[in-house]
């Protein structure tokens, strides 16, 4: 067995050496000096893995060439005990807009929607919104307290919590300020920054109804306060009707423990409601008879209307859709058939239909929805478009199961003015130029 491996390593080293001959002489010297070649025995394939991308322009790997990765061994199991994306995907990351906030500790990062291929956001790419940074919580030390108007106030360890029956549900989470920079005009030329404050995951956790039954809610209990254990001690009041409907205390996200950025070890998931209500790093649930009027439901997350009044408790995320390809980051690749693809979602339930326009909303065509179509989840849509190379204005418009039709920006602004910050779910327009490039425009 060992002898066989050694022979193999020798073969790999030989290939590596041969490959290095194709490198420019200075590169080759560096390669040989680096010891990658002699260490090849210990690395199997690893040496080649490091080498091939550097060959770059020097050599192609497609037909008729037999690729180097076909003529060598790859990395062994547990080379990455916790798997990470290919290094070629290094640009697919969350990004922030430095000018938007005073500090990264109270800030936002955006999901790279332009690269996401399904309805599930990979855990490392889920958008972030912290108000006092991301705490590092030891789950052994973390506790959830449930008290207030209940018969039996309790303190649960994370192990206690996971003993309750759990459910899994796929739900999007969207910050109500998603797109909020665009009320006064088109500013950002990027899908990621325009709409990347929405993500979607499978959440596993314990229903609030299970926990509230456990503690014996008193009949006066009409509201629930959820509080985080971060430095913002984030709090939101949630009416009991919603709490008992479909809210869960989640401990897992896409099958693994929540990411720290998403509230590790536990967070609230409040399906269809604005992201801020999905309190992360949850430490306390209090039952009361009135809302608490916390800073996050008075000073923030209320909508200022043109007449100077403000709307509070505007929790639901109304239906929204956006074309994710093409988009500013993903131009049209050439004349001919183009798959227009996008995402649609509604905080009120399922997506019923999505229409697409290529002429700025004059005429519309119904797109195809891609299964699965689930309540309060991202839903994919697509439409085949034969692009003749002339300028076009692409839009998508979602209709949800309540019959609500996604509004135009003009319609939305006519009612809400330009100062409400939150809940900008208007139709997005992408301008396609003759060269296939895509620009964020407003009509």
């Amino acid at each position, binding site marked *: 067995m060992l002898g066989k491996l050694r022979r193999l390593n020798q073969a790999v080293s030989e290939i590596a050496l041969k490959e290095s001959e194709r490198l420019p002489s200075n590169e080759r010297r560096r390669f040989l000096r680096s010891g990658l070649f002699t260490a090849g025995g210990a690395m199997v394939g690893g040496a080649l893995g490091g080498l091939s991308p550097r060959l770059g322009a020097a050599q192609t790997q497609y037909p008729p060439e037999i690729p180097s990765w076909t003529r060598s061994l790859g990395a062994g199991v547990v080379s990455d005990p916790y798997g990470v994306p290919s290094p070629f995907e290094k*640009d697919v990351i969350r*990004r*922030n*807009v*430095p000018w938007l906030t*005073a500090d990264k500790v109270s800030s936002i990062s955006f999901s790279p929607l332009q690269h996401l291929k399904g309805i599930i956001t990979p855990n490392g790419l889920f958008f972030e919104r912290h108000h*006092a940074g991301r705490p590092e919580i030891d789950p052994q030390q973390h506790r959830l*307290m*449930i*008290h207030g108007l209940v018969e039996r*106030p309790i*303190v*649960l*360890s994370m192990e*206690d*919590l996971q003993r*309750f029956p759990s459910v899994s549900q796929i739900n999007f989470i969207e910050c109500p300020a998603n797109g909020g920079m665009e009320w006064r005009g*088109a500013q950002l*030329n*990027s899908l990621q*920054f325009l709409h990347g404050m929405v993500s979607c995951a499978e959440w596993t956790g314990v229903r609030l109804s299970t926990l509230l*039954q*456990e503690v014996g809610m008193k009949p006066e209990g009409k509201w629930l306060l959820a509080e985080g254990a971060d*430095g*913002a*001690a984030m709090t939101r009041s949630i009416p009991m009707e919603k709490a008992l409907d479909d809210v869960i205390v989640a401990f897992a996200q896409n099958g693994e423990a929540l990411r720290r950025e998403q509230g590790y070890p536990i967070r609230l998931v409040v399906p269809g409601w604005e992201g801020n209500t999905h309190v992360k790093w949850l430490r*306390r649930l*209090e039952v009361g008879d009135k809302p*608490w*009027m916390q800073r996050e439901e*008075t*000073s923030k997350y209320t909508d200022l209307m043109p007449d*100077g*009044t*403000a*709307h*509070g*408790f*505007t*929790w639901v995320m109304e239906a929204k859709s956006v074309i994710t390809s093409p988009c500013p*980051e993903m131009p049209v690749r050439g004349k001919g058939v183009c798959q227009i693809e996008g995402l649609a979602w509604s905080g009120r339930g399922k997506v019923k239909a999505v*229409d697409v326009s290529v*002429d700025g*909303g*004059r*005429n*519309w*065509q119904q797109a195809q929805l891609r299964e699965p179509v689930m309540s309060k989840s991202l839903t994919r849509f697509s439409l085949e478009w034969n692009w003749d190379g002339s300028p076009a204005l692409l839009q998508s418009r979602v209709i949800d199961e309540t019959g609500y*039709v996604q*509004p*135009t920006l003009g*319609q939305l602004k*006519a*009612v809400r003015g330009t100062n409400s910050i939150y809940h900008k779910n208007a139709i997005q327009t992408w*301008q396609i130029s003759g060269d296939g490039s895509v*620009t*964020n*425009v*407003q*009509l």
Partner: protein
Amino acid sequence: MFSFDKSSRSISGLCSGLMFAVLPAFALAESAGHYGYGSPATEEQIQAWDIDIRPDGQGLPEGSGSVEEGMGIYETYCSSCHGAFGEGMGRYPKLSGGEGSLTEDRPEKTIGSYWPYASTLWDYIHRAMPFFAPQSLTDDQVYALTAYVLNLNYIVDGDFVANKDTLPQVKMPNEDGFIWEDPRPEVTNVRCMEDCKDEVTVSDSAADKNLTPSTTGPLDEGLTE
């Protein structure tokens, strides 16, 4: 070479044993709706963690603080970010000003111009400020800071002393400016499919505005203003 067989046999044996032991008991617990997990929350535990304050004053602790006391504490712990008069440094939030601006083109939503309840100020300072050291202030300090910030906004006089009786009586200027009921859906679009409008004109474009960080390569730290 591998020993799949051996291990799988022992794992399945283990599982079936567990099934027999656990299933009946679990079904019982679920039907009773009470599991008895965790431990009862003690009065002491609840008191330490229950920090929320309601507009009617519920939750406000003993103690008090005056505008004058608040001034010194504010200068030490708050003014570096929020400005000596609450005007806000850089992009840190303003804590004062903006009265009457809510209908203007550029409204300033501050404690004085926007916040509906004074209790929220006590609650928030206590739970989240100062930003770098949340929950480090004493109750008296929080009362004093609340009094001082209210005074910065001309909501209370200079001799105001905040405590659990006086604070709930402070009426905020914009209390009646809020509607606590969601009027949405408030915008109606119709699902027109053909000839939906005569004219399409582009009114604004993000091209050449130079506000968009790069979405390729490493994180773009430029464009800070």
